[in-house]
């Protein structure tokens, strides 16, 4: 399994993601530069967190126009695995590889904290090592993570079982309090209809070692590794 972690100008979780993959999980992982037109034969692309282009205009919007994103779009349409973390999720929304958009957090403040996530769909390549209903403890760090989509879109998302992770309490219960950023349907992680492109606001790379307070994030990466066999 070879991972490619994309660097946009302003990405700042690129090294963290590479570190989790290479040093913690002992996987092959390389950087991909946004200006190139070459995916270097990776099996999976990760769009890392950060503030691509300063998040000016809208979070993730300018990165979506990067040269490499055209390659990634094709890669995704052919079934390649793509995971967008935080800013990466926002880029995938702007690129319309995933449905919906992000609004500012409901308290209008940046939020950096651990949250609990309930696994809603364990059949995806990104959650195959989790159990349905399992609660993961993984941090978030974002300003615009308040997921929104029009009524017909959200209906479709639900019908297709595209919600992968929801903000919950430590017991797996949904509530307004647990839904820290105000996301529609408490959505924290979302997959496309084809089931190969996922976006998630929480940062699994920040929860891959006990020293950092949790190892629950490894489940996401380990699921992908297992999926590829």
């Amino acid at each position, binding site marked *: 399994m070879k991972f490619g972690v994309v660097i946009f100008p302003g990405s700042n979780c690129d090294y963290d993601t590479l570190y989790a993959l290479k040093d913690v999980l002992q996987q092959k992982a390389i950087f991909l530069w946004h200006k190139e037109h070459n995916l270097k034969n990776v099996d999976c692309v990760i769009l890392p967190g950060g503030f691509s282009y300063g998040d000016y205009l*809208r979070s993730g*919007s300018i990165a979506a126009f990067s040269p490499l994103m055209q390659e990634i779009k094709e890669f995704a349409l052919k079934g390649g695995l793509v995971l967008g973390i935080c800013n990466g999720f926002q880029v995938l929304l*702007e690129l319309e590889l995933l449905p919906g*958009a992000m*609004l*500012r957090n409901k308290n*209008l403040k940046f939020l950096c904290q651990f949250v609990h996530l309930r696994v809603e769909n364990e059949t995806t390549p990104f959650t195959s090592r989790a159990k349905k209903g399992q609660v993961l403890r993984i941090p978030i760090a974002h300003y615009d993570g308040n997921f*929104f989509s029009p009524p017909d879109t959200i209906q479709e998302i639900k019908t297709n079982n595209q919600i992968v992770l929801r903000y919950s309490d430590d017991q797996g219960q949904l509530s307004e309090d647990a839904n820290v950023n105000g996301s529609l349907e408490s959505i924290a992680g979302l997959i496309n209809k084809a089931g190969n492109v996922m976006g998630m606001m929480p940062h699994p790379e920040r929860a891959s070692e006990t020293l950092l307070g949790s190892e629950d994030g490894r489940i996401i990466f380990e699921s992908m590794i297992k999926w590829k066999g």
Partner: protein
Amino acid sequence: MKVRILVSLKDSVLDPQGQTVKNALHTLGYDSIKDVRQGKVFEIELEGISEEDAERVVPEISDKVLANPIIEKFSWQILEKD
């Protein structure tokens, strides 16, 4: 040529920023304020382009870049002709 583009959230989308501004204004005693919606404005200077081309380019970049059509709408006007 100078154009102005207004981008704002669609009416169906909740605007927490506008809400907060409204509440702040109420706290200050401005009770006549019934609703506030907040959006973005871009003032763009164009050069070496005909009015006709601008009529095509401006909505194009608004739709493609400046606004996210899932949540936002836009309008535009020419402020200064060449």
